[in-house]
């Protein structure tokens, strides 16, 4: 493990692996397979930074999020938060962990209980472990709602009365009300229209600045990630294939997959010269992984070694690690 800085990471993933046993085929005669959603992920998130995870559907990025939130326990490896393995936390400390790490999900209307009033949704975290008076609770609600830029009157309403952007603000308010140290943002803006997306992204960056939050943001949209994150990891079929500082990664992507992703990203710049797609085909199944590098079947720069050996994540440049045989030679 190379140290990424002088700071102690807030969150660290060490060889985290998550396999799901699944039945393939019909009843009974089916084979039991392992769906390797996340397979040996290493990374660390420093306090105050925004850590982005990019990847297509099926890359395992959502499972990463669930592991960090301890909605799942890893099959192997450990998730360390402030140096402690969250899988081993006793219940009192787990409650504390739940206070420290909060989440905002993609589908705001899905993550707000349609049968609860906004004030109850926002206040719910306070009701769970904290002993607070009603007045205190409603005071906190009013404050946080103001901070996320919502009018006070929404507190009495129900989620369906709000627009998409407002719902996402409510979700952020709920996540922020207990002053967590870290927010996990799982595609927080991808369901929003462009104009509203900008509002929410600005709000997120304001919050981070104001409260010194750490973000872990999961998205398939490189534009959004590029705007928000300081460090970016690219995942493919359960593995992190490249990780580094965002600017570095954008300027000098090393992995052929990262390169293809950047190339495929539509940019509203009519002057840009569009080249033919460099990769073909689609992401494979996490049930039947190829031998060697998982990207090899689609890789335009495939070498014989790629179909035999699975490359590990090595430092190719300062603070820039990549898992590709092209860059294995430290020269």
């Amino acid at each position, binding site marked *: 493990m190379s140290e990424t800085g002088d700071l102690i990471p807030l969150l660290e993933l060490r060889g985290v692996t998550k396999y799901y046993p699944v039945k393939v085929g019909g009843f009974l005669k089916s084979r039991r397979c392992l769906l390797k959603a996340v397979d040996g992920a290493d990374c660390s998130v420093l306090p105050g930074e*925004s850590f982005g995870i990019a990847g*297509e*559907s099926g890359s395992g990025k959502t499972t990463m999020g669930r592991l960090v939130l301890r909605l799942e326990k890893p099959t192997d490896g450990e998730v360390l938060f402030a140096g402690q393995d969250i899988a081993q936390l006793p219940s009192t400390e787990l409650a504390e962990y739940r206070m420290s790490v909060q989440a905002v999900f993609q589908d705001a209307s899905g993550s707000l209980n349609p049968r609860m009033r906004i004030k109850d949704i926002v206040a719910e975290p306070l009701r769970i472990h904290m002993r607070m008076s009603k007045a205190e609770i409603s005071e906190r609600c009013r404050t946080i709602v103001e901070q996320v830029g919502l009018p006070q009157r929404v507190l009495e309403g129900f989620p369906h009365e709000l*627009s998409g*952007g*407002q719902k996402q603000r409510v979700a952020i308010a709920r996540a922020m009300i207990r002053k967590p140290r870290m927010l996990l943002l799982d595609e927080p803006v991808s369901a929003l*229209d*462009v*104009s*509203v*997306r*900008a*509002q929410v*992204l*600005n709000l997120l*960056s304001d919050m981070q600045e104001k409260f010194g939050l750490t973000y872990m943001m999961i998205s*398939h*949209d*490189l*534009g*959004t*990630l*590029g*705007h*928000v*994150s*300081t460090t970016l990891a690219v995942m493919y079929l359960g593995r992190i294939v490249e990780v580094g500082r*965002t*600017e570095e990664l*954008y300027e000098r992507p090393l992995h052929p997959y990262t390169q*293809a*992703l950047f*190339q*495929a*990203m*539509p*940019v*509203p*710049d*009519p*002057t*840009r010269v*569009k080249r*033919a*797609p460099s*990769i*073909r085909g*689609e*992401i494979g199944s996490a049930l039947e992984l190829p031998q060697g590098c998982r990207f090899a079947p689609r890789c335009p720069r495939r070498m014989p070694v790629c179909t035999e050996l699975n490359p590990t994540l090595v430092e190719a440049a300062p603070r820039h690690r990549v898992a590709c045989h092209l860059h294995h030679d430290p020269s």
Partner: protein
Amino acid sequence: MQYDPVLSVRNLETHCFTPKGVLKAVDGVSFDLHSGQSMGLVGESGSGKSMVCNSIIRLLPRHGVRTVGGQVIFSGRDILGISESEMRRVRGREIGMILQDPLMSLNPVFTVGNQVGEMYRLHPQAEDGRPIHQRVLDVLRKVAIPSPEQRARQYPFQFSGGMRQRTVAAIALAGRPKVLIADEPTTSLDVTIQDQFLCLLKELQEQEGMCLILVTHDLGIVAETCDNVAVMYAGRIVEVGPVREVLMRPAHPYTEALLRAIPKPGGRGTRLYQIDGEPPNLLDPPPGCPFQPRCARAMPICARTTPPMKADENGRAAACWASDIEEVRA
């Protein structure tokens, strides 16, 4: 323009009749589409862009939604006025369509070959005497589906997302339409697959000489795929013109705001341009220009009178009191 447009939409008005009142989903939309041209129809959700397409092909929800005015002139006749059976011959054969979600738009209980072949059975093309099966394989090859013989016998659920969307494209191509409407065809696809599909679509459009209407909310896609772009807001087109000009020098404040609100790599630390507020409730639209409550350049007149489209001779037009096209071009 010296050529007659292939498709000309004139003052199209489609309203939804809800218990709460009339919702003007499409409120006087006009545009022309010339042979071989591709046009991007851009807007946020609720702007009426899909409703425009459904009105053109006359497939509106049965109840409560009606096209109440305007014309859709296709090959010289107003297809809003022809009979349903005539319209059926237009659909698929003259105007094709690709829908948003390829998983949902293929019938789960029929084989892919059957669904593609249905186009040939519905629209027998006299000049082509080859068996349907053969033609199915050809069109599947055309959309780059590998081993089409085997694939044609499979069901949609056995296809991946990108392949499904290619199949939908094959169905559209099988009718050899003059106009292809693609309604957010890549929203459910991953970015690399989206890229592949858009390249294919563009290639096919050029090959077949089709007109393309590409509905999307992503200006990036328009930039890479289309010749012209029309930006919609609250049921109206607010700006229309060649992609290069509109994106480089937007004339309408909304277009401009949209462009500036897109997060870009390396923009960390800077605030995104932010359009405050929410799109208007179309049941109770604001007076005057619909964008005026959110517009940074709003003037008193904007809240009183709806701005007309001001066009130049190149087909570049915008509906805004604040911007003068000539001024922008100058």
